């Protein structure tokens, strides 16, 4: 089969599927549907599956566009999908986000089977969170189902969803980060080795991870076309297919993780903020938000999203980033419970932010490539970066200047008990960590538009605007 010829504006991650690819033109994102999957696309649209999935909020909506194709030699149609506000990656998701993405994929597959179609891939990167819920963004993931044919995406589903969820739930929540190394999902032999023996007592994990991994090792050199053909002569009936999908669903649903002893769990109870200082800080931020009316906000070090909600509740698309998986989990569960549409909680270690990954480092974008946000909040954050991670203040100013136009930043002085706590076990080598040092470092990159002392506290809030 011919692969699409890359065009100057085709997207870096969109090259594997000969069925089509994404390209951008004049700032608009389009998807070319190639003739290779014309039948699949027609079936999706005509069977009513597309309509049902879009109505259920499980598939991105699109319109057919009358624009010249990016590669005319292959083109069947051009579609314009609804723009996804922010692309996040599974290694930035909390446990429940990942689990909901897995269940959304299986729910789509069940509905597809009823319509005589099947998902030809089950990539976690095809799921994005839009208006608080997981949604499939690849319109070309569907193919016409042929009775007898096994699920091509079975291995991918296990690697992208079941293995990471099992490792996070049954070994350690941090193992979700393995997807940053293993971009196509966690190798099942690795998952099988890391999972405790007792997971073999769970039928789903035994079958889909442990036996699956053994079979991969054992039949690594088998000729799949021959063995597959002989196996499928006996057939994988539709009932068997439905049973397989149902079993994966049960396995995913049984996996649970409860955030225990969160890093910031009762953070607001242990800070030296009085209620009135806390209220004053909120009032300052709300006032500035009204003034600058940003189109997007990233709250860095957002904890459970208390301050992020000042932005998202007023309709601003907001991302609440935090390093603590428990805080992100609690934040997501609240987004879900309250059906919040403008807030996306994500996990991020700011001292080592998500890098560009994949083929030619162009499949997954780094944090910076997905910015800038119009406004960034850096509240009660600077001491963690400047003292715990030894980042000099001028470098912090450079970093923030690359991420946003407006910066709402809280200065936390050395006298603050939270800073004293960080210095308790180490020598104070931070002579430059003073208010003057902060103002001079940030003054080199930003204009100070406003600055206010927080009531009953040593802290000071700044509204900064990047210098051009």
């Amino acid at each position, binding site marked *: 089969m011919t692969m699409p010829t890359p065009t100057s504006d085709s997207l870096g991650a969109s090259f594997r*599927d000969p069925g089509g690819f994404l390209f951008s033109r004049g700032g608009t994102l389009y998807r070319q549907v190639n003739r290779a999957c014309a039948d699949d696309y027609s079936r999706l649209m005509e069977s009513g599956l597309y309509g049902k999935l879009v109505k259920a909020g*499980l598939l991105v909506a699109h319109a057919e566009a009358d624009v010249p194709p990016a590669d005319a030699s292959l083109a069947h149609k051009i579609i314009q999908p609804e723009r996804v506000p922010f692309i996040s990656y599974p290694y930035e998701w909390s446990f429940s986000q990942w689990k909901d993405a897995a*269940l959304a994929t299986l729910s789509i597959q069940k509905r597809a089977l009823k319509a005589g179609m099947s998902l030809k891939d089950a990539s976690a990167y095809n799921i994005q969170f839009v208006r608080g819920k997981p949604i499939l963004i690849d319109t070309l993931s569907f193919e016409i189902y042929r009775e007898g044919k096994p699920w091509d995406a*079975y291995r991918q589903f296990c690697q992208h969803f079941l293995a990471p969820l099992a490792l996070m739930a049954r070994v350690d929540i941090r193992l979700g980060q393995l997807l940053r190394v293993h971009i196509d999902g966690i190798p099942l032999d690795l998952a099988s080795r890391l999972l405790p023996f007792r997971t073999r007592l769970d039928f789903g994990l035994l079958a889909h991870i442990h*036996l699956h991994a053994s079979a991969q090792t054992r039949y*690594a050199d088998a000729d799949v076309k021959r063995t597959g053909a002989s*196996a499928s*002569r006996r057939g994988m*009936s539709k009932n068997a297919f439905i049973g397989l999908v149902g079993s994966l669903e049960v396995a995913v649903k049984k996996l649970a993780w409860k955030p225990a002893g969160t890093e910031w769990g009762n953070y607001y109870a242990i800070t030296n903020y009085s209620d009135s200082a806390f209220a004053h800080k909120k009032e300052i931020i709300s006032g500035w938000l009204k003034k600058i009316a940003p189109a997007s906000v990233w709250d860095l070090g957002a904890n459970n999203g208390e301050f992020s909600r000042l932005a998202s509740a007023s309709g601003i698309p907001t991302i609440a980033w935090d390093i603590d998986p428990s805080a992100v989990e609690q934040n997501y569960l609240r987004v879900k419970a309250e059906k919040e549409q403008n807030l996306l909680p994500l996990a991020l270690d700011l001292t080592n932010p998500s890098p560009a990954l994949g083929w030619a480092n162009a499949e997954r974008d780094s944090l910076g490539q997905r910015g800038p946000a119009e406004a960034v909040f850096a509240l009660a954050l600077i001491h963690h970066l400047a003292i715990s991670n030894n980042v000099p203040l001028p470098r912090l100013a450079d970093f923030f200047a690359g991420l946003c136009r407006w910066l709402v930043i809280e200065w936390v002085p050395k006298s603050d008990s939270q800073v004293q706590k960080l210095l308790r076990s180490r020598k104070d080598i931070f002579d430059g960590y003073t208010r003057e040092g902060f103002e001079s470092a940030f003054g080199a990159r930003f204009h100070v538009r406003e600055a206010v002392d927080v009531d009953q506290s040593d802290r000071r809030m700044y509204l900064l605007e990047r210098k051009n």
Partner: protein
Amino acid sequence: MHFSPPAYLDPGSGSFLIQILIAALLGIGVAVRASWGRIKKLLGKGQADEPTDDDADANQ
């Protein structure tokens, strides 16, 4: 039976074979539940049909 080679994803030899085995086992369960549903329907008991997934939102 019509069989076409895998699409653009490599399903993997081992994954392909274990899937057929596991699915065959699970398929028996699905078939039994479906027949049991039909028997109950014939006897005029139970629900008229299997619950449909169409309106249940698994996406919660």
